[in-house]
């Protein structure tokens, strides 16, 4: 049994008086693709954002329980949050390039970390754009504004921007929801390659995508974790009738 990369331990989460997550406990194995799927409002994004503490930026929320990264509770009072977010990268549903050029976008995280080494930045630029399957398309346009790229290219740029920091964990929140099928396939293919290096957790934008990319999948419904099992089992022989109902399209 390999050590889990991430352990979610008895997490409850509240927006004001609304309970968004109910007693979630799970272990995410390293170097694989884990999928959180289920109907909207089930708490998938909330759970995802808890893993790099982006929920800290939302006011009037409350959390109980622990989230462990390599055995360390990331919610310890003394935890270094910027450092955590360098280890746990995030890609959002919409492509959100920052103002500036393609190059500036990819190297922004290094700049934040205090890196001023031109050589290392250049190396990182090529590596992360290649990993995100974007290098060939932008290698002659590195100093163009990032928002001059197409939507699909922008999203892969955002993936490259996260990969530039060589995160141990990569969180993706419906990363292909705004993309066409070809761009979607490119993103999924790069995930397949990236899972050899990183632990990937993704909220997919459809059940089909969940089944295509997942090594293991968690079905979430109204803040509850219904089941969390290897993808070979959950998509063919779901243990819970609600999971089966969702997968076969009876609701959701």
């Amino acid at each position, binding site marked *: 049994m390999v050590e889990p990369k991430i352990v979610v331990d008895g997490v409850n989460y509240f927006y004001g008086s609304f309970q968004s997550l109910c007693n979630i406990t799970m272990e995410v194995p390293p170097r694989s693709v884990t999928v959180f799927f289920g109907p909207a409002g089930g708490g998938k994004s909330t759970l995802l954002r808890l893993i790099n503490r982006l929920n800290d930026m939302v006011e009037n929320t409350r959390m109980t329980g622990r989230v462990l990264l390599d055995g360390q509770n990331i919610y310890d009072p003394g935890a270094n949050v910027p450092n955590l977010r360098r280890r746990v990268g995030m890609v*959002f549903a919409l492509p959100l390039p920052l103002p500036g050029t393609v190059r500036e976008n990819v190297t922004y995280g290094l700049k*934040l970390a205090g890196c001023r080494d031109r050589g290392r930045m250049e190396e990182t630029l090529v590596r992360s754009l290649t990993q995100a399957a974007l290098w060939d398309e932008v290698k002659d346009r590195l100093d163009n504004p990032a928002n001059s790229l197409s939507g699909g290219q922008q999203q892969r740029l955002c993936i490259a921007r996260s990969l530039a920091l060589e995160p141990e964990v990569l969180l993706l929140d419906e990363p292909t929801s705004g993309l066409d099928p070809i761009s979607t396939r490119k993103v999924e293919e790069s995930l397949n390659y990236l899972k050899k290096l990183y632990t990937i957790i993704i909220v997919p934008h459809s059940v089909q995508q969940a089944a295509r990319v997942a090594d293991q999948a968690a079905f979430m419904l109204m803040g509850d974790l219904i089941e969390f099992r290897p993808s070979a089992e959950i998509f063919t022989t779901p243990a819970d009738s609600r999971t089966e109902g969702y997968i076969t399209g009876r609701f959701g």
Partner: protein
Amino acid sequence: MDRYRTQQIGFAVMSLSAIVVVAPIMIVIGIVLVEGARAISWGFIFSMPYEGMKEGGIFPAIVGTLILTVGTAVAAIPVGVAGTVYLAEYAGDTWITRAIRLAIVNLAGIPSIVYGLFGLGMFVLFLHMGTSILAGVLTLAIMTLPVIMSTSEEALRAVPMEFRTVSASLGGTRWQAVRYIVLPQALPGIITGIILGILRAAGETAPILFTVAAFYLPRLPQTPFDQVMALPYHLYVISTQVPAMPIRVQYGTALVLLFIVLSMNVAATALRSYFRRRRQW
């Protein structure tokens, strides 16, 4: 009545309104330009007044206005921008910050004579600065702050929240997001606020009336505790307080004040469009 006719009438009314707004301004500028141009000479701009200000130039008033304007900018811009960044990016939404925001918006609208009286009470008398450049600059700065702060806060809030989230997700601190993303994006808007505020300060009479302005002082100030002449106050004085003042001197003074304010405006607008071009998204 058919739609085409309605549209024509609408356009005519709007054009007329535009003319009604623009024409008086053009006429005022035109008259000041024509009448004032006759007074303008090397000596008028660069020499001291004499003969009870009826003869000579307005050099000390020009210098005084420039000192007061630059001094106001130096005092108001750092405090105003830093305070706004704190309010918009760091301070939470509590009843205290709401009260502060409300106060800022209201302070931007109160009459300048109120600031003049406040400056007299606070700086001239209570803090024993006397009628001095220091007291005048601080009074003008206090008057300028709400304008800078309210427009700057708008500009900061117009920067999409997502940029801050992305910056944080890449391991950035709040300050790094402000420094690298939010401030550069908001800069054109902040500069607009600064232009509006500082220009108001350059042209005002009431706030400097009791705090710094000298009636007749034909020499340049030596220390921040000296009084100075200033163009708006000088114009007021020679238009209403000195009998038999030649009209061309009045128009000449008005033209110089107009020129200083407009050229600062143009320079600041150019700066703003430079930063706007550099912004990419």
